């Protein structure tokens, strides 16, 4: 197993945990309790208890419409649950706005990349820096922010070099390829100096040549002491980099454990692999898939409606 080749403290600690749903982690950073979100009659997320280990890479998997993105939205304040609590380092995140969550150090990326097309790559990066003096209206009018701006720019260029985007710094972000946008979005999130990075399908639509470098970047985040939570479909990727895997289906956590435990789990094989990979669907399964699709549509609609710009995108 590739994960064994790089044993870290956190990874080895997790290895000794029982493979139970809702198992207590030695050093949890994000803790979720009784979180329920439903759209109309459909339950998109219903998580009883879930802990994410600090400094570990946790992979979140599940079939389409399992509620992974909705869970991400809930944890980062982009959506509000019907009921439930969740906390970060002991501080409750309930009812916090997305920007407040981000300021606490929980920064996310999006499934559909949100590169800011008509800003340059460098401007995209600089936007990520926190506590900028020049972002206050009155201070913006005075030259006092310039020294800080130079520091931010230096840090941005450093990161861009690491992500091999330095040559593109002055180009509009809209001219980047899909994979480059994923890289930019991850780099931009790092500009916030986050404690927890939540990546929503970081590998989707990325050409295979870039995948390996993206994976290395994700692993590096752990080396730098960050907690990483990511949603992914590709099981190879999940096995390769995660210390712990959480499996969701129809809004619930159906299994969690180290990567090697997952493929042995009957529930996972049934709900996830079975339904989507082999055997024709039974009528019951078909209904489930349909319901999931509907939830996904509803979730998208809700997300769309939330933001004015959303209606204008993809024009």
């Amino acid at each position: 197993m590739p994960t064994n080749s790089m044993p870290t403290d956190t990874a080895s600690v997790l290895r000794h945990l029982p493979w139970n749903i809702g198992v207590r982690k030695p050093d949890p950073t994000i803790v979720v309790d009784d979180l329920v979100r439903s759209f109309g009659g459909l339950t998109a997320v219903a998580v009883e208890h879930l802990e994410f280990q600090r400094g570990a890479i946790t992979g979140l998997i599940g079939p389409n419409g399992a509620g992974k993105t909705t869970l991400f939205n809930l944890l980062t304040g982009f959506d509000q649950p019907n009921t439930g609590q969740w906390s970060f380092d002991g501080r409750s995140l309930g009812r916090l706005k997305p920007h407040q969550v981000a300021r606490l150090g929980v920064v996310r990326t999006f499934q559909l990349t949100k590169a800011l097309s008509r800003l340059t790559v460098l401007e995209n990066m600089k936007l990520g820096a926190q506590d900028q003096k020049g972002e206050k209206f009155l201070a913006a009018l005075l030259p006092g922010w310039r020294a800080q701006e130079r520091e931010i720019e230096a840090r941005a260029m450093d990161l861009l070099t690491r992500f091999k985007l330095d040559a593109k710094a002055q180009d509009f972000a809209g001219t980047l390829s899909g994979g480059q946008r994923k890289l930019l979005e991850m780099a931009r999130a790092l500009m916030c100096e986050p404690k927890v990075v939540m990546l929503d399908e970081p590998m989707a639509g990325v050409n295979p040549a870039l995948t390996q470098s993206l994976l290395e970047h994700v692993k590096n985040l752990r080396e730098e002491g960050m907690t990483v939570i990511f949603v992914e479909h590709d099981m190879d990727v999940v096995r390769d980099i995660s210390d712990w895997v959480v499996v969701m289906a129809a809004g619930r956590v159906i299994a969690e454990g180290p990567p090697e435990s997952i493929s042995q789990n009957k529930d996972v094989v049934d709900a996830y692999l079975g339904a989507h990979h082999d055997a024709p669907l039974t009528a019951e399964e078909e209904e489930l898939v349909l319901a999931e699709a509907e939830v996904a549509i509803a979730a998208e609609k809700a997300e769309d409606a939330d933001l004015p710009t959303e209606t204008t995108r993809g024009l």
Partner: protein
Amino acid sequence: MSEFLDILALSVKSLVSQSAVFFALMGVGLNLHFGYTGLLNFGQIAFALLGGYGVAISVAMWGLPLLVGVLIGVVAAFVLALLLGLPTLRLRADYLAIVTIAAAEIMRLVFRSTPATPITGATRGLSGFGRDFYAVAPFETQRTYDFLGSTWTGREIWAVLVGWILVTLFSLLIWQLMRSPWGRVLKAIREDEDAVRSLGKNVYSYKMQSLVLGGVIASFGGMILVLATGSANPDQFQNANTFLAYAALILGGTARVLGPVVGSMILWFIIAFTDAGLAALIRNGIIPSEILSGPDVANIRFVLVGVGLMMLLIFRPQGIFGDRREIVLDAH
């Protein structure tokens, strides 16, 4: 031929006239809203109305000094922006559009209504509030001057001069803001609000700041308009004017500091030229008066602006000087 030259001189005068100033100021504010932040404010004229009436009511009805009137106008615009923004800036873009256009229509109807007569003078409006303004002019405002091939009264020159100074100051302000991190956040919000939220910025607060600042700039436009024309009348603040300002902005190019300024000048050159040209053609019998009569000419401008706005958006959304590439980026 001399008639043509007269028309041309008149049109050249329009390039820098009070109308051009008025729409430039409205446009500079709209550019901040629409061009930089992506807010759909369809009630920009309401901010101008508050600025204009702020001065007119304070001075003519309450006998306050001009500067206090200016302050009242600015505060009124500020408050309107807060009132409109608080409920709508969290919602989809078209909600702000509907609320602002409704608010603008409400204000105009209320200001021109009979019950409001003691304050606003209803349909007759207010006049006689400009004395202090012209008293501080550094030159004789009672005589006329020849300038750019046309005749100007001293009052016109003073009003237009102050107006262009304001346009310059506000353009410099926008220029400085847009190269600062503050402006970067605004432009990012226009591109994708959620991305900006996820990076720890309070999007709602920035949108509010943008709405307030752009509204206040428009209120100065209203002040210049009423001071230059010497009267404040509700029908100067027709809803359609907001869209003239949009046309000017899009013509000159959105999200460029000078876009609304250049656009407003060109728009008024075109309007003055077609107005005067059509009037001349009717006078000389080239266009039979059965088809188009004198009073219709003033309406033609709105028809042209409407059609022009459509054509610009369909065929050249980047404005006449804009860079195609920026627009193309967007169509992904």
